[in-house]
């Protein structure tokens, strides 16, 4: 999508949202193209299921469309978008438990045949297991912070949880991950 010739990087997300609010639905395609990769990665890491990740991404962008007229650019667009994605993920996690076995999900690194790639795939799988085993809220803050590139204050905005709650969740998640990864010989 980002290779789309109609893609205009000069236009920011807020002006695209204004277009969307005015009924110019072409702006939605532009927004999806710009952000779907991060949205999909966030949902995929949170849910561990590529199909569910695509369902969540679709639902999130439809919610963007339906909320366009109420959108107020008080925070960064991506923080607002991530909040929608987080809520979609939490809804899905509440509806279906447990999530699919992440062993069933092909890892791109696991598709290689070289020994180095195999070791890397094994490491990646161990990390995925460790993150997957975290409680839902801890997993979400880790995914948003470590992989989504948000600061802990932005994570608080995206989740609607307090700064102190996010700090606590991050700290506990890192302690748990360090213990698990150290046992697996991956941390340190």
């Amino acid at each position, binding site marked *: 999508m980002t290779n789309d010739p109609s893609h205009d990087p000069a236009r920011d997300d807020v002006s695209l949202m204004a277009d969307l609010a005015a009924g110019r639905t072409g702006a939605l395609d532009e927004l*999806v193209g710009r952000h*779907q990769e991060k949205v999909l990665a966030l949902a995929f*890491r949170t849910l561990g299921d590529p199909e569910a990740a695509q369902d969540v991404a679709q639902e999130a962008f439809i919610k963007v469309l*339906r909320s366009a007229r109420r959108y107020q650019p008080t925070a960064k667009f991506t923080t607002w978008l991530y909040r929608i994605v987080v809520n979609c993920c939490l809804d899905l996690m509440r509806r279906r438990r447990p999530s699919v076995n992440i062993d069933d999900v092909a890892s791109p690194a696991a598709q290689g045949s070289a020994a180095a790639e195999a070791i890397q795939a094994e490491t990646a799988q161990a990390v995925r297991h460790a993150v997957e085993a975290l409680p839902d809220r801890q997993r979400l803050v880790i995914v948003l912070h*470590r992989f989504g590139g948000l600061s802990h204050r932005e994570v608080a905005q995206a989740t609607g949880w307090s700064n102190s709650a996010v700090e606590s969740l991050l700290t506990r998640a890192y302690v748990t991950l*360090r213990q698990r990864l150290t046992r697996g010989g991956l941390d340190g």
Partner: protein
Amino acid sequence: MDPERICNAELLDYLGGRLDEAARARVERAASAQPDVRRRLNEAARTWNALGAWQVDVSGMDVRARVAARAMAPAPFLLLRLDWRQIGRIAATWLLAMALGAATGRSVAGRHVPSDAPQTRNDTELLSPPSEEALANALQLDLLSEGHTGEAIDAVLDSGVLAPEEAGG
């Protein structure tokens, strides 16, 4: 001077490059001066780097077509396409219309007899049989208007013409 307090979330934001220049300098100053901060930063950095091994490839996923199809499809129910303020306005308009209709109905009912059932004291009187006294007065008026004398009228009234009919008679 008291050592600067650096929380774990700040250390993680530092590793993620999410701090501004002043905050970054504060963390670095604390890490160089305080062994405890340096130890925590190293621990966090090791875990941070280990997590980096988990790369996901979503390049094969593209939801543009799915989103476009959903965006073009009509919502299954009109109300789903409205926000709460719009639904509130519709509900308020509907209630106002109901209230006005009810008020208008009461106003119209006050000027007309709305049903066969007796509604007022006058209606009840109209539907009840007249008393014997009322009939006698009416008959007396009729006889006087026809020019009969008082004696003749008394005779008619005494004849029992106003007495109730015998059952079966």
